[in-house]
């Protein structure tokens, strides 16, 4: 088990060390990074026998109280993916080391690529849903950086963002699904979840959880209708496309479906939905692939199509389908990785990847052409390549499906043959632009041996499949269905109904190619999914702007109105739905006439401030309100307050006058036209608050803490003026805060006046 820990840590260690190990210009980055990934491959290979023989698990605690831990476990399924990640990775890394020119920031590139590889290993070895999610999102993030590697291109940035939005968004949905399952089971360990699968399937959250997790899987694996990010991601450097978008990252969704299949296939919605999506994706993808003229776009759509195929297989959760899925997944990793790398070579040598501009490869690049043909044959499912076997297995499954699905799937197979022939024959035999001949020369061996090795692998998978990977496939398929799988007998030579269908499909595909039924257009119309994405993007921004502008007026009185109205409305709701206790004592004591007369002064002053026609009058009205307050204070036994109020009001009025009266313009203070709405709001506020207060005063619970002050002021605090004693002693801290406010206010006033843009130095 520790070998696997080492294998998954090696890429991260490499990424961390790369800046220190590499030379300043990053010349040797590629080789160092390749070293790490090859070492990782070796670690996986060495651990495989032991792991298959005796599975185990290692856990590193993260947040124990939440059940979060990084636990690592492995079975055939994980190992199959791990081989793909590290194996294809080794080849892609070495390819990239030779491929990227010195003008690129190779250090950054390989750093990202190593992080990605480590994250993928983390996903497949995770034995805990949350740690799987952690690495899952890390793959999204690192792929974002890789797709946008050539960040000066607008298309790269857009493609990176799109890929991130779709895959990470799906990942979030998946997280919710994981949490639902984790909450049902009480654990995020996959082993515990497997054990509790009946409980999960019976829970009322089951369907929701399944749909959410499915969303994660189909976005990551670019299934219909979330496939549009994959073609856009082709803006990445070609090794990235080969690695992420053919061999590994897009397979993470498949891995998830396979891993969770034993649990989620118990939920009725799982298998039918995924099967339909997979088959539709397969056929739609191959149809779109036929229409492309850009080699990379063609491969991208073909990848979508192939992923759909594998998805449909894993969704079945039967032994034979899982075997087909695993086998084709390995196959696809090999031949599609090779194809992408070769497109990179072609672009490198011929400076174009436009099908219509590429001249005869067979004569220009014979070695490359040979490899290309083999890979295309494998993809088309033509003997003696591994693809043939996997297509047979696939068709066998498809023939058992409801007939509409069968028809669609067979159609997809025909189209697949069609675009493969475009690759193999179209590229090799057309003679369109002889001018290209001058530039084009055969690919250097440094670039060619990687694809060749991959294709050789695909060939071996066709010739000796059982010998090469039988045990692994068996174990992987068993893990994917959570049960026993018979040892697969994979062979090239057999006679069955599927062979007939297969031959028919190949012939039909050839016909499609030969007669050019699917016209390839140089500027293929935009994908519907692309248009949806763009509409979403602009619509989101546009509507967000409209919504935000509607309330962010920048007008103070609107903000205040909102605040006050929220208060008034919620208080009214309170009165209606909860109600106030009307029986509470409404303890207003009667008042003498002269008190009413005194009260008239502040009332008149307040109203006067509202209607005051000039600055001076308004300020004086405020002053009158303050002074009359002092009068009230003195009447109710608050001499300190009265004194303070008088002093404060005097100084305030002086400040008001010095601030505003001398301003030359706007001496008149025309009140705004009477605003009934604002008047109503104000009245509701003033009257409501007063009523609340009065109501509350009637229901004091027990006494007040003030009695203590009255009792202890003299003896314990040595002061007869209780208010002052409270201020400086009982509640001295308030006063400390209060004088801080005064001090800061003065500093700020000073700063406001002295420090201004027009005279910077105070």
């Amino acid at each position, binding site marked *: 088990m520790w070998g696997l820990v080492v294998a998954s840590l090696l890429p991260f260690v490499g990424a961390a060390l790369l800046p220190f190990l590499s030379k300043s210009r990053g010349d040797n980055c590629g080789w160092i990074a390749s070293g790490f990934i090859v070492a990782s491959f070796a670690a996986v290979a060495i651990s495989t026998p032991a792991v298959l023989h005796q599975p185990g698990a290692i856990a590193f605690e993260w947040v124990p109280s939440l059940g979060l831990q990084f636990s690592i476990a492995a079975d055939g399924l994980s190992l199959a993916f791990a081989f793909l990640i590290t194996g294809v990775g080794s080849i892609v890394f070495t390819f990239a080391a030779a491929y990227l020119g010195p003008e690129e920031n190779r250090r950054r590139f390989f750093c990202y690529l190593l992080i990605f590889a480590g994250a993928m290993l983390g996903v497949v070895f995770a034995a805990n849903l949350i740690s799987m999610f952690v690495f899952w999102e890390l793959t999204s993030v690192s792929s974002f950086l890789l797709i946008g590697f050539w960040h000066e291109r607008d298309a790269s940035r857009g493609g990176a963002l799109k890929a991130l939005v779709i895959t990470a968004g799906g990942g979030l949905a998946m997280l919710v699904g994981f949490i639902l399952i984790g909450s049902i089971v009480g654990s995020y360990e996959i082993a515990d979840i497997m054990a509790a699968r009946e409980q999960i399937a019976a829970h009322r959250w089951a369907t929701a959880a399944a749909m959410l997790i499915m969303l994660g899987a189909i976005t990551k694996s670019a299934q219909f209708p979330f496939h549009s990010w994959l073609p856009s991601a082709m803006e990445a450097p070609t090794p990235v496309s080969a690695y992420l978008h053919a061999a590994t990252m897009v397979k993470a969704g498949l891995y998830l479906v396979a891993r969770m299949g034993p649990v989620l296939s118990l939920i009725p919605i799982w298998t039918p939905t995924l099967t339909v999506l997979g088959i539709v994706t397969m056929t739609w993808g191959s149809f779109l692939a036929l229409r492309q003229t850009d080699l990379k776009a063609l491969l991208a759509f073909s990848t979508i199509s192939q992923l759909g195929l594998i998805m449909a297989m894993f969704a079945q959760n039967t032994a034979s389908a899982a075997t087909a899925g695993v086998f084709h997944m390995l196959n696809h990793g090999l031949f599609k990785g090779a194809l992408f790398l070769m497109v990179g070579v072609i672009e490198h040598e011929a400076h174009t990847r436009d099908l219509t501009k590429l001249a005869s490869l067979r004569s220009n690049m014979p070695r490359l052409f040979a490899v290309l043909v083999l890979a295309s044959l494998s993809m088309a499912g033509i003997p003696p390549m591994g693809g043939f076997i996997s297509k047979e297995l696939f068709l066998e499954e498809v023939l058992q499906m409801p007939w509409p699905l069968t028809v669609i799937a067979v159609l997809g197979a025909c189209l697949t043959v069609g675009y493969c022939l475009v690759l193999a024959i179209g590229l090799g035999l057309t003679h369109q632009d002889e001018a290209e001949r001058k530039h084009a020369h055969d690919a250097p061996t440094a670039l060619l041996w990687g694809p060749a090795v991959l294709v050789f692998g695909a060939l071996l998978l066709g010739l000796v499949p059982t010998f090469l990977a039988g045990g692994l496939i068996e174990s992987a398929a068993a893990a994917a269905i959570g049960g026993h799988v018979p040892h697969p007998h994979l062979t090239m030579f057999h006679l069955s109904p599927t062979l007939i269908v297969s031959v028919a499909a190949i012939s039909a595909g050839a016909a499609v190619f030969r007669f050019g039924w699917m016209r390839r257009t140089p500027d293929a119309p935009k994908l519907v999914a692309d248009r949806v994405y763009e509409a979403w993007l602009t619509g989101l921004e546009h509507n967000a702007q409209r919504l935000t502008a509607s309330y962010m007026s920048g007008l103070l009185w609107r903000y*205040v109105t909102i605040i006050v109205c929220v208060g008034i409305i919620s208080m009214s709701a309170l009165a209606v739905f909860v109600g106030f206790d009307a029986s509470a004592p409404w303890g207003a004591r009667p008042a003498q006439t002269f008190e009413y007369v005194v009260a008239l002064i502040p*009332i008149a002053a307040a109203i006067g401030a509202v209607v005051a026609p000039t600055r001076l009058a308004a300020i004086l009205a405020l002053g009158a309100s303050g002074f009359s307050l002092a009068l009230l204070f003195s009447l109710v036994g*608050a001499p300190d*307050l009265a004194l303070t109020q008088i002093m404060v009001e005097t100084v305030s009025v002086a400040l008001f006058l010095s601030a505003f009266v001398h301003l030359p313009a706007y001496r008149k203070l025309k009140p705004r036209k009477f605003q009934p709405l604002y008047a109503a709001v104000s009245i509701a*506020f*003033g009257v409501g608050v007063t009523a609340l207060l009065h109501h509350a005063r009637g229901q004091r619970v027990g006494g007040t803490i003030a009695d203590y002050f009255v009792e202890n002021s003299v003896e314990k605090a040595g002061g*007869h003026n209780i*208010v002052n004693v409270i201020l400086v002693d009982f509640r001295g801290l308030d006063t400390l805060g209060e004088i801080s406010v005064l001090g800061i206010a003065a500093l700020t006033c000073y700063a406001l006046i002295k420090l201004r843009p027009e005279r910077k130095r105070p």
Partner: protein
Amino acid sequence: MDVPILLVIAVTLTCGMYMVLERTLLRVVIGLGLMSNGVNLMLLASGGLGAGTAPILHGQRDYGASPVDPLPQALILTAIVIGFGVTALLLTLAYRTYQSVGSDDLGELDGKLTDE
């Protein structure tokens, strides 16, 4: 004298809020001043408005006439002082804003000029 004071509170708060909702700098500042007057009275009323004497004790132990609740008074004092500091700042700020914007109309402060 509950009712008169409650009336004062209600009117002062209403007028204060109406002025805060206006669109002239100075009126808003005055409105806040009125509101803080009203709230100070509220605090006073929250302790009860008995006909008690001022909370000043004479002699060592004088529990003769029951004094009015002193705590709200202390709170009001603190609130007045803080209010004074804030008002001073508000005035300076209003004055500087006026100077910088060249108008005392809050509608001109909606930020559209300097947004984006």
